[in-house]
């Protein structure tokens, strides 16, 4: 189902192209015609992070003519464990600029189109419409659903890849007869249930492995060769180095790509994923749990208040940095609930405030009268109270 224009309209290869892509040209599956298809192709990389790094680099190397990049983030030291398109000198710099520079250096003939924006329902259709294939390398559920729906509505194939710790998934969604992301997952997980890389960690090589799979699928779609992952979910287990192939069916009742779609325009994906809006965030009570700022906690400790600080992180995190709280890792809290002093006000904290919020809600449901959550976790403490506490 090549989405690329007929051979007649394809750009010619220059002498430089012939030299550069010689290893493609001598492959029967690519050849001069295939390389011309790559040159004509326009691919949008949503995200220039873990997945986007290898994806964009290999597409540029392969001779894709135009790469659109969408990213609004800035390079951080903790990115460099896996986001190899960026370098140490780029810390603090916009990822878009850093990525574009490396891609251009690799392939000066590449046409880079930067989209310095948060992809949203307001702009997604407009941005995606000018590309042939979309490679989704984003890091959150709302954008996953947004990209999926936009691809289905526009008829653009979506080379999908996602990762968690040391496991990955890859597929090709939103082709005409194939399934879409919603056929696989009609509903997102509740926020906070599936930990982020920041909370759960990720093996640095993993997005490399999965990003290359996405690049491979993108190239196959452009060239119209091989068997793309349409209707298949590839599962990667890097730890055991096992690859599994599961059948993905198009859901005839899919609200987006089914026979009678009910989603015919982009929706509010934050709401869809159950994420509270910015205005809800202003209030300092979440699901019945008061949110305490790091500064306020410090003030209350200094005032000698009778607080019980409960740290629900893992022991290795405690070793990296702690503020002297009682460590009961989140999964042990139910069994060790007797160690938490019901008479005191419990201040629950973790790294960023997510896990502690869930544990705070659990304690409240278990009958603890006074439970608060340290908003922003130990990271906020490091930012606002004591920079000597290491961030990780």
């Amino acid at each position: 189902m090549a989405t690329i224009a007929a051979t007649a309209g394809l750009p010619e290869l220059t002498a430089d192209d012939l030299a550069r892509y010689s290893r493609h040209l001598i492959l029967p599956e690519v050849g001069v015609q295939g390389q011309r298809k790559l040159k004509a192709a326009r691919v949008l990389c949503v995200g220039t992070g873990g997945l986007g790094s290898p994806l964009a680099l290999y597409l540029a190397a392969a001779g894709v003519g135009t790469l659109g990049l969408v990213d609004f983030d800035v390079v951080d030291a903790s990115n460099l464990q896996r986001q190899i398109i960026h370098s140490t000198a780029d810390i603090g710099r916009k990822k878009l600029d850093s990525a574009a520079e490396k891609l251009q250096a690799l392939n000066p003939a590449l046409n880079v189109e930067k989209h310095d924006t948060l992809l949203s329902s307001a702009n997604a259709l407009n941005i995606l419409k000018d590309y042939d294939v979309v490679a989704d390398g984003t890091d959150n559920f709302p954008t996953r659903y947004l990209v999926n729906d936009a691809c289905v509505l526009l008829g653009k194939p979506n080379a999908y890849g996602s990762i968690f710790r040391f496991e990955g998934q890859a597929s090709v969604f939103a082709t005409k007869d194939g399934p879409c992301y919603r056929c696989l997952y009609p509903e997102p997980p509740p926020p906070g249930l599936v930990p982020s890389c920041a909370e759960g960690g990720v093996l640095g090589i993993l997005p490399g492995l999965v990003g290359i799979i996405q690049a491979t699928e993108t190239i196959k779609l452009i060239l119209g060769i091989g068997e793309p992952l349409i209707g298949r979910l590839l599962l990667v287990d890097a730890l055991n180095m096992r690859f599994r192939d599961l059948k993905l069916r198009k859901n005839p009742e899919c609200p987006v790509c089914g026979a009678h779609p009910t989603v015919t325009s982009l929706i509010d994906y934050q709401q869809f994923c159950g994420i509270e809006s910015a205005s809800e965030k202003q209030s300092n009570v979440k699901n019945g749990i008061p949110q305490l700022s790091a500064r306020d906690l410090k003030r209350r400790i200094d005032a000698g208040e009778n607080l019980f600080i409960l740290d629900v992180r893992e022991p290795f995190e405690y070793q990296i940095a702690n503020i002297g709280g009682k460590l009961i890792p989140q999964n042990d809290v139910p069994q060790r609930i007797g160690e938490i002093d019901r008479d005191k006000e419990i201040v629950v904290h973790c790294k960023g405030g997510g896990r502690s919020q869930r544990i705070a809600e659990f304690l409240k449901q278990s009958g603890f009268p006074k439970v608060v959550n340290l908003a922003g976790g130990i990271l906020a403490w490091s930012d606002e109270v004591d920079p000597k506490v290491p961030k990780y």
Partner: protein
Amino acid sequence: MTIFIPTPLRPFAAGKDAVEVNALTVAAALDELTQTYPELRKHLFTVEGKMRAFVNVYLNDEDVRYLPGKEATEVSTKDTLSIIPSIAGGAGGDLQSSR
């Protein structure tokens, strides 16, 4: 038969990546799993007892939703069940904090 537990759910299954159960149908296998590991139940099923829509169960390489018998499909010792949750790496649900 073997039930493969995905990484995000392993903390609720005593850290195991695979659990052996002795059951005759997909539903019975999942029941036995959640009886042995009750914490898994709320991650796999809604309060009404339906499979949560961000979790997929595969019998070998087929999605149980699309099997004619669905959860009533019979299983043998040679079959495997895989639980495949949605993952998105990266940041948490908050678009603003993309660390």
